[in-house]
């Protein structure tokens, strides 16, 4: 370990702070490069469905059935949005989702930090074995554990409550793995200095390690937010009362067996996307970093 690493660490913390302030690196003088020839078509392909969704959400029901579909708005039926709010307990779903997401994100930050730190720094019997077992759970598809998880949640009496969505997701193998990897990169001397200064294990974690782990925690928070917000299958299995539904589940109820109000569905969709879009806007770098890390999941 060298002095340089200590400086580097401080620099990293500074960089994180700068990212929060959304300071962009200086842009190049040239507005166009050959990369744009590749990037622009890809961007168009990515953006078209979103535009189509936005346009559809502002059309009348007749217009939505027009063939070929239009990408240019022909009318601006803003009342679609208020209709959605009237026809369905949309705000209730929104609040439900927000509660579940916030609690799950907070739980992951807390429990994955504790577990990740233990695996990174505390020597205990069977540490490697337990860690490998936790990693192994990443390779088990969710569909395999649906039934046992359902039975456990049922025994807790949580079926058809928000608790069913929160409890099984309070910690994640992915989060433990990611934070452990990050904690191991912090200079051990900082923790030794804190030990000599008299800090306890938890004191070291909360006063030294976590304040220096801003980027890693932000990445985990962003990923868990997105996963939880967009989760559909688990809420579909455990929730059936409309007042306990999440947004994704509620949206599905707009698709009737005989008739679908596409314009209203799209209006609801647009609204459900806003938090994720906002998050992406402000924490774009952490998404990228997180996806780069998920590459390690193997």
């Amino acid at each position: 370990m060298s002095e340089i690493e200590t400086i580097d660490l401080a620099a990293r913390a500074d960089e994180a702070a700068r990212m929060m302030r959304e300071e962009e690196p200086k842009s190049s003088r040239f507005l166009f490069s050959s990369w744009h020839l590749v990037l622009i078509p890809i961007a168009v392909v990515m953006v078209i469905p979103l535009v189509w969704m936005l346009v559809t959400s502002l059309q009348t029901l007749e217009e939505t059935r027009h063939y070929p579909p239009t990408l240019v708005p022909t009318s601006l039926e803003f009342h679609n949005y208020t209709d959605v709010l009237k026809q369905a307990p949309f705000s209730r779903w929104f609040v439900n989702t927000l509660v579940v997401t916030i609690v799950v994100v907070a739980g992951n930050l807390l429990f994955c930090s504790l577990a990740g730190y233990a695996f990174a720094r505390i020597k205990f019997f069977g540490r490697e074995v337990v860690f490998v077992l936790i990693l192994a759970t990443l390779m088990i598809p969710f569909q395999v554990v649906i039934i046992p998880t359902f039975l456990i949640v049922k025994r807790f009496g949580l079926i058809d409550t928000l608790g069913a969505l929160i409890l099984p997701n309070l910690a994640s193998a992915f989060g433990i793995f990611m934070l452990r990897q990050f904690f191991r990169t912090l200079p051990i001397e900082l923790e030794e200095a804190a030990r000599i200064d008299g800090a306890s294990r938890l004191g070291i974690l909360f006063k030294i390690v976590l304040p220096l782990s801003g980027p890693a925690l932000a990445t985990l928070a962003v990923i868990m937010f997105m996963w939880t917000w967009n989760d559909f299958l688990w809420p579909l299995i455990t929730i059936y009362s409309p007042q306990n539904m999440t947004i994704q589940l509620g949206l599905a109820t707009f698709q009737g067996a005989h008739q679908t109000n596409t314009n209203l569905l799209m209006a609801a969709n647009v609204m459900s996307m806003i938090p994720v879009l906002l998050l992406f806007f402000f924490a774009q770098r952490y998404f990228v970093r997180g996806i780069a890390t998920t590459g390690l999941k193997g």
Partner: protein
Amino acid sequence: MAEVRLDHVTKLFGGDVVALDDLTLDVADGEFLILVGPSGCGKTTALRLVAGLEKPSGGAIAIGGRVVNDVTPRDRDIAMVFQNYALYPHMTVYKNLAFGLKERHTPKPEIERRVREASAILGLDDLLRRRPAQLSGGQRQRVAMGRALVREPKAFLLDEPLSNLDAKLRVQMRAELKRIHQRLGITTIYVTHDQVEAMTLGDRIVVMSNGRVQQIGKPQDVYRHPENLFVAGFIGSPPMNLLRGRCTDGCIRLGELELPWAGPDAPEVAVGLRPEDLRPAGEDGPSLEFVVDVVEPLGNEVVVHGTTAGTAVESGAEEEAEIPLAAEGARAAITAVFAPADEPSPGERMRLGVVPDRVHLFDLRTREAMGP
């Protein structure tokens, strides 16, 4: 303040790597003790054992008369300065200094007083609101010292605290460390591989190699009377010249050179000659033949590298295998330090005068010093 005692302390890593082998050390109350040795000699391990960051595999460690083998670092009441300073990057200088006191629930006015006091001693007053990243290397070093000072501990442990500073700053901080120690008189254990720091700072120095103590003593005593080949080769800069010779019939024989010898005979000895004890000489008096190879004028002295007839002996303290500059055949590299007036020119043939009572002798079988 307290004395520190290591009693037959052994440390194994991974069950079979011996980092420390039966180390016994007594550090007196208020003493400045230096642990010096090449990298991997166990000096940092010894310090970490005293700090409580490692547990000894055997033996006892006592601070202030209390055995602390099972006491946590927190309750040992020692302070440590790390080689890379280990300042908390997310805290201001003030918070860095106050952290250890806060963790011990020191009352706020007391924290304030001690931080002010330490920052006055170290000249940190203007930096208290800055973060470590905004400080220069020397300033960081001071903050690391300050963090130890505010604790007013029983003992200071310093792990190569100056090695990350540039040469000029190092000399300055060295003097400052000595001044602080003279002022506060806190028991200090200081680890370094730099023998200049060892010689200038320590009340006593402990020369270590391969997890074992080679010699303990006052710096001048260790310099004047190295007890074995390793210490002879390690202490002194440039290092002592060691040449193969023999002792027979009351004479030390080194090639053509013969010196009177009152000790026992020995078929194989290393003859140690400090570079600063070698002087240009005439034909009379004991002397060595010498061919100058490279001349390094340093202003107040001239370091002269060259060769003489004979075979060099390795002390085991060399950083790397010696690269003979111009040693051909049976010639050994040898270094001398002259006064500037005596500066020779490269290629010059001359004679080096040897003072008989400044010659060190080591038995090559035991590698220990021989006395008459």
